[in-house]
């Protein structure tokens, strides 16, 4: 009996230590620049991080969505197209887990950019969302000029989608985690369920992060 108590206490202590060590801060990806300015007569050096630039697209409901629609929101972004036979179904099967975990959370969004806007019109995206069981305004499927989408993908540190000789799109299945200041805080393989559960954990970590003053 005494042994049992010792074991229980040890496990409990281990758990406690582990809990304390859990206060993880997610890294900030991308370029950064030191900016020196004078505040109240004192020279202060600040770091300016790379952020997602301005964009404007249309979602599955036909509404205009811009970078402003995501102000003050934590969001996950990916690139896909509805007729993709290879990795998209598995990506969105995994993204559904993220959606179902956070669909009732305010200030959280998922945006999926189609890289085939010619086929993926607004009605096609709406039908896709319906069939996936996605309703409301948590998960947006965005459509716009192909060049704009491709250019934007570079700022997410994603390999630029390319068309090979067969005109078949190749893109990697990354899920990008963006914070309220529009900085990239994580990149995950959307085809790997393990990495996607890490993403869900990291979103919770990010939600617990104290709000910083947004630097314009």
């Amino acid at each position, binding site marked *: 009996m005494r042994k049992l108590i010792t074991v229980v206490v040890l496990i409990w202590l281990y758990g406690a230590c582990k809990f304390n060590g859990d206060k993880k801060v997610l890294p900030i990806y991308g370029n950064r620049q030191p900016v020196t300015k004078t505040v109240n007569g004192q020279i202060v050096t600040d770091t300016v991080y790379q952020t997602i630039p301005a964009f404007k697209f249309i979602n599955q409901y036909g509404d205009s969505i811009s970078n402003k629609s995501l102000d003050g929101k934590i969001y996950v972004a990916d690139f896909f197209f509805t*007729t993709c*036979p*290879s*990795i998209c*179904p*598995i990506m*969105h*099967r995994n993204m*559904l887990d993220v959606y179902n975990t956070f669909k009732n959370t305010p200030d959280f969004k998922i945006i999926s950019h189609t890289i085939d806007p010619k086929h993926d019109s607004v009605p096609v995206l709406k039908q*896709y969302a*319906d*069939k*996936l*069981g996605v309703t409301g305004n948590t998960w947006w499927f965005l459509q716009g000029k192909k060049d704009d989408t491709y250019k934007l993908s570079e700022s997410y540190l994603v390999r630029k989608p390319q068309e090979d000789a067969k005109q078949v799109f190749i893109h990697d299945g990354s899920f990008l985690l963006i914070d309220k200041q529009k900085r990239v805080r994580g990149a995950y393989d959307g*085809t790997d369920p393990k990495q996607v559960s890490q993403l869900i954990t990291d979103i919770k970590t990010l939600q617990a992060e104290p709000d910083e003053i947004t630097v314009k």
Partner: protein
Amino acid sequence: MKLRIVISLLLSGLVLIISCQSEDDLEFTRYYSNGMVVYQSKCQNCHGAKGEGLQSLIPPLTDSVYLKTNKATLACGIKYGLKGKINIAQKLFEGQMPATDITAVEIAEVLTYVTNSFGNKMSVFTAQQVSNDLAKCK
């Protein structure tokens, strides 16, 4: 990847255990284990590791009645793809399954795997049978 190795090991163990069984059982096991490899590389991304499909986008492979009723045309669907409306597990699906360029043997293997997994229980699909079915594709 690790899972695949474990499964392969388990399957080869299974092969050893039942190696005293009849020729037919051996054939089934061979078709089934090869079929699993074909499934993982050609079908699983869309239809899922458990044949669960994806919501209303991609039909599941768990409808035993559909598989039994359409036994003779399953090979055609895999080889040449499927298009249009399809009623699976009391749900209407509309879309397109791309054609897959695989041999009659591989089709027989993957059909043996699918029709004996995910709660389905059918007999082995032989390469001969699949070739006959393919000759009748519309």
